[in-house]
Structures are given as C-alpha cells and as structure tokens.
C-alpha cells in the first residue's frame, strides 16, 4: 500500500464519500443527536473510535473469518467496541452520555460501521482500513457538527452553549425539532450536490 493511496483513502471520507451526505447512511443518529454541536461532536467521535477499531480487527482477521458467518463476526466485533465506548463515556463524560442516551448503543446497528467493515475492511489491508475508518469517522464528525451548529444557532440562538445573538433573538424552535433536522439535512444535501456537480 503506497503512501498516496493511504492519503486518498483518508481524504475520500472527508469530501468525495463524506457520510452521511454522500453515503446516505447512518441517518438515525444524524437526525436525532444534532440538536447541538456538543452532542454532534460527541456522537461523531464515539463513532470514529468504533469505526477505526472495528476496521482494524475486521481487516486483520479477514482471512480467518469464514465468509458465511462474516456478518455475525463483524457484529460481535462492532458490538464489543460500542460497549467499550458506552462504558468509558459513562465513566469519564457522564453528562454527555445522558444527552446521547440510547444512540450510543445504537451505533451497533449504524450502517456506516457495518458498511465500511463489509465494503472496505474485509477486502483491504490494515493500514488502508485505518485510513478509511479515520477518514469516514472524521467526515461524519464534521457533518454532524455542521448540522448541529446550524440547528443550535437558529433553534436556540447558541453555539456550543454560548449565546450568539443578543437577548432579543427569538429562537426558531422548528430547527431543534425533528422536522427541522430533515429540512436542514435536505438543504445541506442539495448544496453538496450543487457544489459537487461537474
């Protein structure tokens, strides 16, 4: 694996295949936890950790795992790391854990993680899989923080818990509700498509 292709594997997750905009996967947490930047980043980092670890193990074991039970094996690996994240988040960032709640255990069924294990890590070497996991994870974190920023700024008039506008600002509460998440995601997707049009 040459160095340029490693960089390529890493950067494709940041723009060309950035989840959840290009790969429209993992929408459930995307819509649910982007009420604020903080939860968005927390979710993104948790997913990045799980993605990198599961990619490493899946690619390292790809020759040992029989293809008939590969999905079961991937799920065991992913679920293990998700519980590790869940427990460490409870131990070191309890308030964040309370905000993310059920969406941390739900990373197990996040399509991005299983998708990368199946589509990439099970066919490529460990180095490329780490690059792929890091890129995808960071891309997801960036997407979630952008989405979270927009919703928090308009919906609550705050950014990372700090007031952005003066006291006269009337929060546009629609943005922090579920429909606001769909509209915001749709608009961002449209902008991304427009920007990526050749």
């Amino acid at each position, binding site marked *: 694996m040459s160095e340029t292709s490693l960089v390529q594997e890493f950067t494709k997750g940041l723009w060309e295949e950035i989840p959840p905009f290009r790969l429209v996967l993992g929408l459930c947490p995307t819509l649910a936890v982007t009420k604020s930047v903080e939860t968005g980043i927390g979710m993104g980092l948790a997913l990045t950790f799980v993605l990198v670890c599961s990619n490493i193990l899946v690619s390292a074991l790809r020759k*040992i*795992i*029989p293809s*008939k*039970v590969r999905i*079961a*094996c991937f799920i*065991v*690996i992913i*679920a*293990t790391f998700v*519980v*590790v994240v869940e*427990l*460490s988040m*409870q*131990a*070191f960032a*309890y*308030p964040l854990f*309370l905000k993310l709640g059920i969406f941390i255990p739900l990373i197990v069924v996040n399509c991005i993680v299983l998708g990368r294990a199946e589509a990439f890590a099970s066919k490529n070497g460990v180095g490329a899989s780490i690059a792929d996991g890091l890129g995808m994870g960071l891309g997801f974190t960036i997407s979630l923080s952008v989405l979270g920023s927009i919703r928090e700024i308009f919906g609550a008039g705050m950014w990372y818990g700090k007031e952005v506008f003066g006291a006269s600002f009337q929060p546009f509460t629609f943005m922090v509700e579920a429909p606001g998440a769909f509209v915001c995601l749709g608009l961002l997707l449209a902008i991304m498509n427009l920007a990526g049009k050749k």
Partner: protein
Amino acid sequence: MRDIIRMIVVLAVLCALSGGLLAAVKSGTAEKIEYQQLKFVKGPAIKEILKGCSNDPIVDRFKLQDGDVERSFFVGVFDGKPNSVAYETFGKGFGGPIGIMVGVNLETDKVIGMGVTTHSETPGLGARAKTDETFKGSFKGLSINEPVKVKTDGGEVDAVTGATITSRGVCAGITESAEFYKRLKPQIVEKAKAFAK
C-alpha cells in the same frame, strides 16, 4: 463438515475474546461509573441537603446491609464532626415511586433537609415537589422518630399545591425510612466516626 467446525470455532473464539474484554472494561470502570452516577443523579440533592459541610459526601459514603437490601449513606462533616448522614428512600407517588434523599442529624435525630432525586410525577403539579422550597423547607427540623405528615393529615408539612398524593407519598416514604434508620443507627454512628477530620 470442516466448514461448519471452522465457523463454530471462529465465532466461539471471537465471542469469548469479546466477552473477556468487556468483563475487563466493565470491572475497570465500575467504580468510576458509580461515582459519576451518584454525582450527577443524586449529587445535586445531597449537596443541597448537606450544604456547608467541609467534605465531599459522595466520596465519604458507606454501605450497610439491611436484611436483603444494601443501603448507601452519605456522610456530612460539619465543624470537623461527621454528625449528619443523607440516605435515599422511596415513597409511592402519583406516577410511580419517588426517590427521596433525606438528611438526618445523628445527634438530634432531626431532619436537616430533603430533596427529590428521581420521580415520574405530573409536570407542573407533583413534579414541583423537586423544586418547591416551601415544601422542602417544611421538613427541616422535624423529628425522624415521629410520623411525618402533611398539614391536612394533622402534620407539619406544607403540601405542594394541587399535589396532595405526591406530598403524602413523600411523607410516607420518610416515615417508613425512619424504621431502617432506627434499626441501623448504631452501625451508622459507628461507620460515620471513621470520617472525622
């Protein structure tokens, strides 16, 4: 046949390793998680009850076995003397059990404060038991040895307006807690001494 055995072996080994890792992580973080849960769920109520104590009641805690249940006590040190404890008890509310943190002075057996930790009462009515200062304040100074009752039942407590069932549930919870408090008191006093500064 070889295929099946290979699948079984791979999956079994993978699951065993995963189980081992999780057990290690779980036991490694258990203490920290317990502390965090106490700090963020019960911490606010404990801090309010034992206001002005010179120690961290969440660190200075001990457990006592009471029949089948294990009860936690949080020690408050005032003027260098560990003379107060806070403990949690449960009362029957309108929407389910109400977790009540009660602070008692070990020398006088008087309630020094109380706070609601967990509940599922109606927002705006029973849920106000958590924030209503008049209601919470009216428990202060009551003796734990006497049954605690709301005013309409002939007691001393100002019930939360529109939430008589919740208020009664809280009172009954505290009255019931006096039973195990009295039963365990010699042990509580003994254990609390260890926290003297």
